[in-house]
């Protein structure tokens, strides 16, 4: 097996669907050719990303977020926005505490403090066009 044949058979080899003869030839070539060996190893690791990405641990807020989405005319508050809301609420509390403890000083200096409004980025939402219609042509 030469380098070109090896390149053509990488997926079959990694999926274990090469026949016994092909596998032996492939492995003999990989033992001698560092370039093909490194290429196969790179592609194997690339495909391993899929196994990593399959591991899913939904956020504990996931169901709550969907349920509030269906109550509010389809506007989904994304988990990131929820985090921003919680962080903003915490910031407001801190500001309020700060303002409370410094009320006297602020009042005497005659300054007004203006609240900062945070705008979370809009979540893309678009009604589904139609159900998936397979187009065999590419």
């Amino acid at each position, binding site marked *: 097996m030469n380098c070109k044949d090896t*390149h*053509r058979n*990488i*997926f079959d080899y990694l999926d274990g669907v090469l026949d016994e003869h092909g596998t032996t030839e492939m492995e003999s070539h990989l033992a001698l050719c560092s*370039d093909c060996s*490194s*290429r196969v190893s*790179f*592609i194997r*690791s*690339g*495909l*391993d*990303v*899929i196994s990593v*990405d*399959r591991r*899913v641990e*939904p*956020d504990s807020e*996931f*169901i709550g*977020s*969907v*349920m509030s*989405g*269906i109550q509010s005319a*389809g506007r*989904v508050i*994304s*988990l*990131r926005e929820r985090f921003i809301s919680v962080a903003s609420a915490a910031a407001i509390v801190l500001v309020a505490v700060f303002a409370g403890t410094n009320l006297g000083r602020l009042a005497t200096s005659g300054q007004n403090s203006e609240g900062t409004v945070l705008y979370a980025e809009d*979540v*893309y*939402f*678009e*009604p*589904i*066009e*139609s*159900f*998936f*219609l*397979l*187009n*065999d042509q*590419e």
Partner: protein
Amino acid sequence: MTKLFPDHDDRLLVDAVKSGNKDSFALLVAKYRESVIRICRGYVGSYEDAEDLAQEVFVELFRSISKFRGDSRFSTWLYRLAVNKSLNYLRYHKKRFRVYRSSESAGEESLINSPGEAESDAPVVESDHRRALREALDKLPENQRTAFILNKYEELPYNDVAAVMATTLSTVESLIFRARQNLQKYLSDYYEKNIRG
């Protein structure tokens, strides 16, 4: 291989949702959220984006559940919704991704790994693998990509992939064959361009 879930319980839940029972809808979300996030992730890459997109899929599901007539399994219907939503998302963001890619050479952070995702702290070599896979998947035609994602990310067997894509088993076999050929080439090209010394 994961099979599409048995449909009997789902139909009872769907009927309950249709008559206004939101708790039953929450049960459907709990049952299918992981599958939907996995499918969305196959398209968008970033976990956070996939989770947000999955939420939108479920909101869309709630809106349109009255249209589910039971001609197919509920899970088939839901996965098709997730595929459509993901494809719409990608079409909408295509321009943004293209703009980003043109600035990649300037050494900016990748949108493929969203900020704060664990991978951003990973060794460079792991990011390269992730980026190579994402770029390769992005280059696939939509139908090859969909067949591959349903089979590899959600581990649906070919006949279930065919049901979701409303096509035949032999078409799915051919789509996945071509997807593998193309991915092999794209990953190999990436290796030559970016890794090989």
